[in-house]
Structure formats: structure tokens, C-alpha cells
């Protein structure tokens, strides 16, 4: 019989220091109430034990990503990469503790040691090498705009439209980029795209923990924007929006960012866009975490949809606005391979389908991709459309 190992532990000050340096904040404020844990989307999945409330205290004790035992470490890595960064926990925490940020510190530590999920390693590498997470060739980045004649951005143009990786490459999401560009063209907005000079914003890799690669990507983008004379950027993805707005300025960026729903909602209010064609469907709006909770943009997408004639607008009772539930794609979740029944997207889709809607409206390419993929394995006729796609059909 193997001799039993002593399982008592000592505080690991060294790891604590590293985690604090890597950005873990507010850990001593936690009073372990656990509100974070039952608001976490994994709680709703109900098959996986994800004790969010422990991360602050475990960080303070230096007991995150600290196992020397291989199997134990693998379990820890799995936990650390479960977080989809939806910030439901941050929203509900009485002390506003940013647990996704604490976990990001742990991720940075793991990335430094190369001990993070293989699938994410490859994602980071692809973004680093070809500027998109799919490993698609750079030359194809502007293919979505081929037949609709979108000009390349030139100095003096008012807006840069930055579709982001999914709308640039993913065949389903490309329609969102096209709908957006066509709306902008129709109302005569002065805009252009970077085309093959566009690269991933790097939001996902920062959240995966690959800070060095993020910095490279971020600096290159800032340089490109600055050289092109970009002053205002319109984005389709709330993720690009967040990193451009809050994180790029740390590295010297000086441009304004607007999410497309903010921009279009304002134009509707000003009477510059008039949705005329009827959209005779029951539409439920899904608040993307990064647009809603993170950026407080709740009204604008609703305003667009509510201005569309004949559209019957539905809410997910109990689970909308700040209480919306993630699609599961954030912070690297899009690439993670979890069991079919163990996906956050299934939980969220059930809530959306239960409203009796015919269409799920989203305002984030991640949500669109995640829902489309997950719906393939579900028996339902529900359709997922981006807010811009619905608007385009109506003008």
C-alpha cells in the first residue's frame, strides 16, 4: 500500500505575490457570501461544481494554479478555464470583486508555464500568426465585402467599420457584416474598412491569459489605426468594443469606439433611419453579457427592435438585462470543448425558446455563432438573427 501523503497545506506566499502582480485585485474584500456562485451560468448547467466564491480566498492563500500533483493541476486548469467572463458574479458581488480578472491572473501564470488548454494555445497562435483565431488566410479577410463595394478606409472618412474576426470570416456571421455595411451605405455614412489590414482586436487572447501576445496585437492595431488616420470606429462585436474602449487607451490608443447598436439607435431617434417594412415575427432579445452588464448598453438594441413595424418584442422574464445569462463563448469559451449536455448555451437557448419567440435577436457575433452551433443539435425552428440583420430587412 502506498504511504499516505500529508494533505495539509501552508500558505504559498510566492504564488500569491505573482497572482497579485498579474492583476488579481480586491481579494481581501471577499466575505465568502457565495452570491457569485449561484449567479454563475455554470450553476444553471447544474452538472459541474464551480465554486466561484473560493477564488478570492484561495488567491489570498496562494492556492490557485499551485498544485504540484499533475492530476490535481489538470483539475485546477479545467476550473480556471471554465470562466466565460460573463461578469454576472461581478454584477452581483456586494464588494464588486472581479473574479474573472482574478482568474485571468491565474491564466497568465499558466500561459507563462505553457500549461493551458491545447485548443486555446492554437487559437492564440493563429491570432498571432494570421490575425484571426481560425487560421484563415489574411488575404480573405475582406471577402465578405467583395460584392457590395465597400471602400477601403482613407483619411478623412468619418468612420472605420471594424467587423471583427467572426463577421469577417465565418460564413453565417459574414451576413451581419454585410447587413451592417449595407445599412451604412443606404443612409450615406462616410465609412470604410481596413480590409486585409484588419487584425483581431485581441480581446479573447487577453482573457485567455496570453498577455504578451495581446500586447503585440494591440500595439500593432494602434499603429495601423493611427497610420490610417482613424478617429471613430464602429464595431459589431461588444468584445472589440470593450477592449478598444477600456484597454487600448492604456497602450496609447486615441480613437472613439461605438457599438453598432448605439450608432443605429441614435440614427433611428434622429429620424435618419426609418424602418418601414414589416417584420411579422415574435422576437426575443438576448442581452449579450459584454454589451449589457459590461457596458450598460441595454436600451439601444431594444430601441432598434421596437422601432421595427409589426415586430412583436419579447423579453426573457427573470433573465434579461443585468440578469441575462451568457451564451458561453466569452473568455475563450468559444473554443473550449465541453460535453454537449454540459454547455451554458443549451441553458440559455432553453430560456430563449421558452418565451415562444420565433426569432432570437442578438447583438454579438459570439452569441450568434454559439447559438447557431448549439441549435444544430436541438429540435427547434427558432432562428437567430443579429439586430442589424433584422433592421436591414426592414429598411
Amino acid at each position, binding site marked *: 500500500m502506498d504511504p499516505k501523503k500529508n494533505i495539509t497545506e501552508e500558505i504559498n506566499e510566492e504564488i500569491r505575490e505573482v497572482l497579485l502582480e498579474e492583476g488579481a485585485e480586491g481579494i481581501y474584500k471577499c*466575505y*465568502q*457570501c*457565495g*452570491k*457569485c*456562485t*449561484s*449567479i454563475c451560468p455554470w*450553476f444553471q448547467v*447544474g452538472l459541474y*461544481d464551480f*465554486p466561484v*466564491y*473560493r477564488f478570492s480566498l484561495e488567491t489570498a492563500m496562494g492556492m490557485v494554479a499551485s498544485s504540484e500533483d499533475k492530476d490535481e493541476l489538470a483539475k485546477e486548469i479545467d476550473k480556471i478555464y471554465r470562466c466565460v467572463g460573463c461578469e454576472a458574479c461581478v454584477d*452581483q*458581488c*456586494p*464588494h*464588486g470583486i472581479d473574479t474573472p480578472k482574478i482568474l485571468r491572473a491565474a491564466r497568465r501564470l499558466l500561459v507563462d508555464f505553457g500549461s493551458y488548454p491545447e485548443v486555446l494555445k492554437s487559437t492564440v497562435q493563429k491570432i498571432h500568426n494570421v490575425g484571426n483565431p481560425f487560421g484563415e488566410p489574411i488575404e480573405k479577410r475582406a471577402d465578405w465585402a467583395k460584392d457590395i463595394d465597400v471602400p477601403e478606409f482613407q483619411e478623412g472618412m468619418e468612420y472605420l467599420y471594424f467587423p471583427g474576426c467572426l463577421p469577417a470570416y465565418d460564413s453565417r456571421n459574414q451576413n451581419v457584416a454585410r447587413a451592417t455595411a449595407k445599412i451604412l451605405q443606404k443612409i450615406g455614412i462616410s465609412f470604410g474598412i481596413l480590409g486585409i489590414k484588419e487584425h483581431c482586436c485581441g480581446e479573447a487572447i487577453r482573457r485567455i491569459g496570453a498577455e504578451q501576445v495581446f500586447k503585440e496585437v494591440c500595439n500593432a492595431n494602434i499603429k495601423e489605426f493611427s497610420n490610417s488616420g482613424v478617429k471613430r470606429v464602429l464595431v459589431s462585436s461588444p468584445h472589440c468594443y470593450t477592449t478598444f474602449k477600456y484597454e487600448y487607451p492604456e497602450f496609447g490608443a486615441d480613437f472613439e469606439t461605438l457599438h453598432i447598436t448605439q450608432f443605429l439607435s441614435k440614427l433611428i431617434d434622429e429620424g435618419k433611419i426609418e424602418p418601414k417594412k414589416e417584420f411579422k415575427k415574435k422576437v426575443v432579445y438576448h442581452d449579450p453579457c459584454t454589451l449589457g452588464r459590461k457596458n450598460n448598453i441595454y436600451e439601444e438594441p431594444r430601441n432598434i427592435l421596437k422601432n421595427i413595424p409589426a415586430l412583436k418584442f419579447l423579453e426573457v422574464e*427573470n433573465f434579461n438585462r443585468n*440578469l441575462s445569462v451568457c451564451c458561453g463563448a466569452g473568455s475563450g469559451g468559444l473554443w473550449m470543448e465541453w460535453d454537449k449536455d454540459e454547455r451554458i448555451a443549451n441553458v440559455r437557448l432553453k430560456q430563449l425558446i421558452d418565451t415562444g419567440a420565433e426569432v432570437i435577436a442578438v447583438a454579438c457575433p459570439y452569441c450568434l455563432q454559439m447559438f447557431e452551433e448549439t441549435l444544430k443539435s436541438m429540435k427547434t425552428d427558432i432562428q437567430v438573427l443579429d439586430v442589424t440583420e433584422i433592421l436591414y430587412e426592414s429598411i
Partner: protein
Amino acid sequence: MCSEPGQNLIKESIITDKLERVVVACCTPSLHEETFRKAAETTGLNRYFLEIANIREQCSWVHSDMNEATLKAISITSSLIEKIKLNDSLVPIKVPVTPKALVIGAGIAGIQASLDIANSGYEVTLVEKNPSIGGHMAQLSETFPTLDCSQCILTPKMVEVGQHENIELITYSEVSEVSGYIGNFKVKIRKKAAYVDHNKCTGCGDCTEKCPIKVISEFEEGLGKRKAIYSPFPQAVPNKPVIDKEHCTYFLKDGKCGICQKICTLKAIDFKQEDSFIEDEFGAIVLATGYDTYPKENFSEYGADKYPDVITSLQFERLVSASGPTEGEILRPSDSKIPERVAFISCVGSRDPEHHLPYCSKICCMYNVKHAHLYKHQVPDGEAIVFTIDVRTAGKDYEEFFTRVKDQDNVLYIRGKPSRILKEGDGLVIWTVNTLTGKQLRIKCDMVVLATAVVPTKEAIELAKKLKIQTNENGFFSEIHPKLRPVESMTPGFFIAGCCHSPKDIPDTVSQASGAASKVLEMFSQKELSLDPQIAFVDADVCAGCKLCIPVCPYEARVFDEKKRVVEVKNALCVGCGSCISVCPSGATQQKNLQDLQISSMMEVLLGS
């Protein structure tokens, strides 16, 4: 130096060395200035010829470099020496005292303070905004940890107040104006029109019985109804009704109805009654404005804005009160069923600096214990579950009560703050985690009771603005010193009692009320009060009469003399804050013993070294 031998040393030195001025280099003047000035006074020296150089709080405690700190201490002391050279001999300002107290708020705090002052032989006017005195204590079922019936121990005191020869009770009223200063306040009280002549009314209750209009009852926390002409509860003092104009058909439909008027044989109903004003003078004012509970509608994650079976702890008090809407039977609001499992959630709004309130409401842990016990006592087969973060039982016999209830009544305590409450079937389901076992939980229950936080009343916040009473960042009245002067407001002449100061339970409230009363009595025992003479004065030869200083004075201590065309200071109102001095363009306004010349000579020492 502050010891008796130290004081003697100063006294001897004043006499033997014939000292004319003394500077003591020690701790903050707020601690021992009075000690030393008293000592100096015994030798015949004017008390304002002694000054304190604060070399502790402003020097030794805040620096680590001993050599540099020593140099700083020397220059602080030297600067005070320069100042004191120019000090004038001053005499405290004497003001008379009106030996009559105003108590604002007639919950248990105001009742206790009024009785203590009145029993000592002084007159008290007790003002209450509601139609009856009693406050929240009148709503409570039983009190922790002794389980005394709240109304049974309160009503004798209410009756005593109502009948006391030294207490003038003015209900359904509010303080509208206060002017004057410590010892001499002039107060205007607005008595809201009750539309019932209380001199004629005997409180027979016929009008209330016949009134056809039913309104949601504030006293029953929305769980019961009252009439449009009503007295809030049967034991009300005074037990005479008022008409709620907002809901009365007579007022809403232009004179239709009037049933109450028709049946009142004493002709006490008077629809033409108007608000009236009472003016009086008082020497001291006790603030006892109590608390409200934080609105449960703020908790959409708990469905508190839409589920009738998610109630507040005060609503539970009414459910379990024999005089309540269910006559003391615990029936849930949605379908009047006996709930088989009740969840009590702590810290709802409290201890949540990010979204709600940063402080602990102090009483919730203990009333949760009491509620769990009362529920189990009535529904022995039911289950009481309390969700907590910590259980705070600091109080006499509190921990013992908690331990006993848990053990004897099988109350389940789960350590964890729920994140969601959702409807499921005809019940509710709570999402949480037990942070001690790590288990994620979905717990079904029939009713949820939220321990919503204690907050100051909105009237108290308005009053604080009106009377310039200092509050803390959460709107609770501030005391002068948190340890040593806990019942005196920062504004002289105002005293604080009960939950308007901070959340507290009944024993603490009653103690504080008696404390406030004793401070009032201390004041009334003096024929006249001595006020600090180190206040602003105006050099009439220099003042140009620009009046800039008048609006900046927070104490309304400055008036323009139309004849002399200069500003004058009302000495008793001025506290020497210096606001006027900072705006005076000509330097005509100066502060006694802190004149420009003194400040500049101090600055020379401090900056020169």
C-alpha cells in the same frame, strides 16, 4: 502634563514666574485644552491666555523621522508662542436657557426621552408625523431575546406620554422651521389638517366603521387595509382618527359621501379644517426620527418587486402579531396558506457597499432568530431556514437565545447569500451555495422573508438639511465624538436618540434616549450657558457693507445694520467657523484670538524654519 502634578507645575510656574501667557505642547486641544485652561484660571490668569500646541496628532503620530519631527514640533510650538502674544483676554458669552425641550419623533426613543425629561419636572413638546405615537415598536410582535410582547411593554409608556402633565403631545405634525441657538430655539410646527376636531372627538370609532373606502394600511406594511378615516391601530395614542385626504371620496369627488360627518353625533368632522401652525420656544431639541426599511423593490434578483410571497421582516412582524391582518396566524400573502417552509434571508441591502448600503443593520441577525422561533412555535412541522453570511449576536443574552432557538426549534442555518429567488409552481425556489460545505443548492420554499436594511427616514434627511444638522454619508445624524459624546449632535443644542443615529435595537435605543435626556437635563440645570467667545467680529470702521458674508454664514449669524450700513455678528449664533472671514474683501471681519496678524506671524515661524 495633564496629570494633577503636571497641572500643578503649570499653576506654580504661573504664580512664581509671574507668567502672562502659557503654551502647552501636547496632544490635540480637543482632549485637554479645557483641563489646562481650567488649571490656569485657578491662578487668576484669563483662560484664553493658555494655548495648546498640538505636537502629537499633527506631528509625532504622523512622522517617522524623529529628527525632522522634533524640528517640526519646535516650530509648531514657536508658532503658538507668536500667536498667543497677540491674544486678547476674553470672557465667555453668557446666554439664558429656556428650560423646555422639543422631542422630534415619538417612537420608543422619543417616548423614553420625553418621559425622562418630563419626569424631572421640565416641560416637553413631543412632535410626531403620524396620527399616533409608538413608531415601529408598535408594529412588532415579540421582542428578542426575552420574547416580551412588544405592544404590551410599549403601550403603558404611550399612555403615560398621553397623560403626562409636563408633556404636550402634537401628533400628525412636523417641524417646519427652527431658528435661534442653543438654549433659545424658536420653532414652528405645522399641524396637518386631520379634518376631525380632536377637541370634540371622543374616539368612538363609528366614523371609521362606516367609512366605505379601504386603503392599503401603512401600519400593516401593505398586508392589511385601513379606512380613509382612520386611527392606525387600536391602541393608538391619541386614539382619534384623521382623514386621509388622498383617498377620501369627499375630497376626491367634490363633496360626495360625507358619511362620517353624517353619523358623528359630536359634529367633530370638519372638512374645512386647514393646516395650523404652532410656535414655541425651546432650550434643547432631541432628534428621535427613527428609521425606514430599505425598499424591497430594489431586489429584482429576488423577485421582491413582483412575488407577493417574498416579504420583508417588518411584514412578517405584522403577520405574526396578534393584532395583525391575519390575527397572528402565519399565512402567506398570495393564497393565505400556511407556509410549510419559510426562508429568512439576512443582509438584504446591508453590507453591500457596491449596490446598496455599506453598513451592518445590526438588528436583523437577532430578529431572524426570533422570527424562526415564532414560526416554528406556530408551525412545529414546518421548516425554518435562515440564510446568513455571519450571525452577529453581540448583546446581553443574545448568543444564548440564538443557540437555544437553533437547537430546540431545529432551525437550519445555511451560510450563503442567495443570488436568485424564482417562482416555481405555487412556491418559490432559492438559488444559493452553502459556502461551508461547498454544495450548490436550489431550495424550494413557500415564503421568503427579506431582512431589508435599516435606513434613516426621508423626513430626517430633509430635517438635517433644514436644520443644518450634520449626518454621515448614509444620512444618519452625526455625534460629536463616537466614543465619549455619543448623544450630542455636532450642532449645539441638538441631541440624538435611537435609529436616526445608527441602526440599533430596543435596549440600545432606550439607553441612548435616556442618555440624550440626561444631557438635556444637564443643560436645563444651569441658569445660563457659557459659549465660546472666540468668534467673528466686525470692525465697523473698515466694513464697507458689501454683505458678501451674509449668505456664506451657515448659521445665519450675520445681519446688516441698515442704519450703520455695516454687518453685525449675532454672538450667540456664531460658532467661529471662519467662512465670513474668507470672503470678506476688506479684512473687516476677523476672528477673536485668530486675527490675520496672528495667522501671519504663525505662518512666518512655520515657513521660516
